[in-house]
């Protein structure tokens, strides 16, 4: 099966920033991304959990984005501008995708 090199970017960010992040990604020309729920986590700012929460303040989401390598820098700049002063982590992995025309 024919596959194509691409990047998988995973951004774990506070839920109240989700809209801003995805808006920034779209502005940076990202054509697709997927948002996954996150149950809880631990970091420098302590431990948190979604259980029983009503508000969005105490939650995070994971945004996964597959993208061609040449567009990565634009995406990271856009993501960084949003994440910069906020808690959250960004990781980039090399990957292969099917149907490269989609990215």
């Amino acid at each position: 099966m024919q596959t194509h090199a691409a990047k998988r970017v995973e951004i774990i960010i506070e839920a109240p920033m989700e809209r801003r992040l995805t808006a920034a990604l779209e502005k940076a020309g990202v054509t697709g991304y997927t948002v996954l729920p996150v149950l809880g986590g631990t970091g420098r700012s302590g431990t948190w959990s979604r259980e029983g929460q009503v508000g969005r303040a105490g939650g995070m989401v994971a945004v996964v984005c597959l993208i061609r390598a040449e567009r990565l820098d634009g995406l990271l700049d856009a993501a960084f501008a949003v994440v910069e002063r906020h808690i959250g982590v960004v990781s980039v992995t090399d990957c292969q995708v099917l149907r490269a025309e989609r990215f």
Partner: protein
Amino acid sequence: MADILTLAAGNLLSPIILSFALGVAAALARSDLTVPEAAAKALSIYLLFAIGFKGGAGVAAHGLDATLLLALLAGLVLSAGIPFVAYALLRAMTRLGPVDAGAVAGHYGSISIVTFVAASSVLASQGIAAEGFMVAVAAIMEAPAILAALWLVMRRGGQAEMEPGLWREILLNGSIVLLLGAFAIGWITGPAGLAEIESFIVSPFKGVLCLFLLDMGLVAGRNLRGSRGVITPGLLAFGVLMPPIGAVFGLILGLGLGLSLGGVVLMMTLAASASYIAVPAAMRVALPDANPSIYLTLSLGITFPFNLTLGIPLYLAAARLVTGG
């Protein structure tokens, strides 16, 4: 005095408060008891819908006196004004920097709708009526405090991100929209509408409130456990002093407007309560450098339980004393 104590004791031993206490105790003991996020949100949707609807139906039943607009204005003034008082107190009593102090101040200008619901429920069980439109006052008090807090921070050279998108988010946040929407529906459909869905939004209301407070106890307890070291004696003192101070402002405005005894108590409760849903989310966006542990623990772990247990009976007693009601 004896009256207050009896009322406070009666209040403390109600299923509602005990459910909250159970939640706190379970969380502190590190039980794995949890309410799923979706269930907690569903409970809060129910409570907002029910309290809004009943408020609107109340307005439809008793007519709308001119006080409504004035009461809304009073709410706006309280919400925008209390942050200044809170900020000054915080800077005097604690070592919080301007950003953290501003963030906390914003929470205290805004309101906690569950505290409002609990106060309504105490009033109802005492047979004390209140103006239905207080629900709308509650809704209007959510947002102005945020503006005041950000202004305070920026005046002090703090960095606040006030993008236009944030304002739409704050003004159209889910709980405001649901509360006001249900209020409007209750108003439009009136007592007939209320009768149609009474056995959903009236009869089981208190029981649902118990489960919701169980969940809030769990969240508050987990929060307290996770924030050991964050809450200094100064902050603790602020967390129990600020509510009565806010309540005094609420009392003054409530009396000035000529609200009923119940209305005054609700106005006091709104002024005394601190937000733990809408404002934290807004603060994460606008003041990312403020430490969320501080404002969440103060609002949810200290002020909320204080109001729930001692505050509400106190405000009722005070309002009774003053109005002679």
